[in-house]
């Protein structure tokens, strides 16, 4: 069994308009040393999926799953206190906005060590030594001085490095990164991605990276899951999926990014016309059919999941 095994995860949100099905039966698995990228447009449920794994959903949201097992433990059966012992300890998470994700009132050192000291029950000196070590590992110079600084004294890129180092403090098995580079400058994005890839390998992490950017996926993913309207519509090894996308939505996403050497200079990049359907209330058939140029009558029926021998699967009548 994989380190993280998710089967038919659903997240429902209560809204004044009715129940919003933010995540609709998502299944995936990740192992140590693997990087799974959850890709999709904003609002496709990928952030809700990650918050559901952490049990950090907003109050209005409820989570259900056939299986939500982590290291052989069923997360759905854990008490809040036991779940809290896993969070930040064996499952760590970093977020999109490094500018606001750190508390402005406390020093970097304090925020880096507080979780470690709680989970590992060690003293301040030992925790700080580890923090200095990790800050150096994520490429921050004069780490010892940084511990005494406040978040506002650091740039966005540095703060995200601090967030990464903090996430690694307890030596987690699983790291969830929700759009970790979206808020950063392009040059910094590349550095942070490379760093994440290296660290995942070095620490033997299972990395779940959530992004809307296929460029990011191409750099780092071992496997990809493409999400649309709360569902996974295609999944497979990164190389397979990029070489031969089987779902029209994936194809559309790939057409939107220029490929150096392959996209002719001056040619138009693709765009997917139309809007995502409302997720309030029941949704039958393929959610993408209103925007799909290959749509046909049987797209309105329940479409089975089709997987090839290499584990490359898609939910489409054409696949």
């Amino acid at each position: 069994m994989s380190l993280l095994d998710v089967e038919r995860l659903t997240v429902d949100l209560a809204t004044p308009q009715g129940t919003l099905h933010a995540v609709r039966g998502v299944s995936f698995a990740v192992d140590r040393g693997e990087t799974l990228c959850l890709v999709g447009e904003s609002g496709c449920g990928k952030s809700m999926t990650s918050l559901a794994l952490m049990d950090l959903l907003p109050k209005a949201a409820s989570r259900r799953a056939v299986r939500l097992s982590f290291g052989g433990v069923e997360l759905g059966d854990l008490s809040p206190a036991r779940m809290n012992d896993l969070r930040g300890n064996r499952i760590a998470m970093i977020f999109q906005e490094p500018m606001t994700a750190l508390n402005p009132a406390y020093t970097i050192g304090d925020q880096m060590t507080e979780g470690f000291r709680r989970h590992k029950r060690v003293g301040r000196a030992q925790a700080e030594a580890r923090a200095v070590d990790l800050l150096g590992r994520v490429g921050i110079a004069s780490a010892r001085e940084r511990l005494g600084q406040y978040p506002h004294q650091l740039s966005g890129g540095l703060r995200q490095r601090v967030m990464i180092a903090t996430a690694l403090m307890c030596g987690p098995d699983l790291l969830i990164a929700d759009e970790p580079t979206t808020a950063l400058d392009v040059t910094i994005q590349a550095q942070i991605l490379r760093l994440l890839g290296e660290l995942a390998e070095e620490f033997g992490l299972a990395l779940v990276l959530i992004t809307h950017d296929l460029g990011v996926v191409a750099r780092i993913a071992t496997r990809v899951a493409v999400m649309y309207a709360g569902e996974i519509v295609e999944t497979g090894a990164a190389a397979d999926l990029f070489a031969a996308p089987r779902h029209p939505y994936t194809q559309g996403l790939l057409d939107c990014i220029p490929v150096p050497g392959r996209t002719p200079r001056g040619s138009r990049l693709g765009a997917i016309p139309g809007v995502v359907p409302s997720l309030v209330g029941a949704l039958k058939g393929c959610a993408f059919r209103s925007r799909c140029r290959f749509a046909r009558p049987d797209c309105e029926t329940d479409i089975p999941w089709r997987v090839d021998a290499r584990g490359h699967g898609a939910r489409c009548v054409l696949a």
Partner: protein
Amino acid sequence: MLAYALKRLGLALLVALAVSAASFVLLRISGDVALAIAGEGARAEDVDLVRRTYGLDRPLIVQYGEWLARTLTGDFGQSLYFKTSVAGLIGDKIGATVILAFASLTLALAVALPLGVLSALFPNTWIDRLSLTIAVLGQALPNFFFALALVMVFSVKLRWLPVSGSDTWAHFVLPAISLGLYITPPFMRLIRAGMIEALASDYVRTARAKGLSPLSVVVKHAMRNALAPVVALAGVQFGFLLGGSIVIETIFALDGLGYLAYESITHKDFPVTQAVLMILSVVYVLLTLATDLVNAWLDPRLRTG
């Protein structure tokens, strides 16, 4: 930080000067002070005599300059009604007012802090509705009416507490409750709104993702940031309490600055009114300065910037 403090101090001094001039001029131009001192039916010669005796016939700016010069040396003149030094009078009375203000503020915070935090943690529950009810009532009940109702219940019916005076701590209970209820709503609203904002913030989500204890998430991460504006409000409210206790002190005949101000006004004792007004304004300016500095010191962005 030092430059910031000096700048704020300079501004505070300017404000204090402007306020002292404004209050001086306000009292002088709103009516004929000499006539007020001499009495309604006084003859014209007597009024003139009063005017010359007190130097009220000179230009306002000269009168103000002289008054300011004396005031700065701590000489507030003589009370017309109490026939004693104004500085001495104020020294006698200010203690009761400060005690009352402290007691009211403590009471208000003791109610607003837990209720504000709990109603932010559990919105739309009975505790949220209870705090909302207290806030709405506290804002709508005229505090003198509330004070009289308290007297009826606790002094007249139950005979637990004295009706008036300022001799023992028991005399301060009802006045402090009356004033405390009045200033509770703004604290409660500020704390609730601040906590709701902080609890929804990214850094609180980070703290949760680190698996910190719920207590640490709420107290260390959310409250620390939500309560910073409360310091500023407490400073402002303390200043308001010193000046606003006039109604409550009068009802309970609590022998403080507010009651003194009331008596000086009804007896047209201008030196006393002027001095109390000046002191309250300057104290307010100093309080806001102090809270600004405390806030700057609490906020690492200002402290280290």
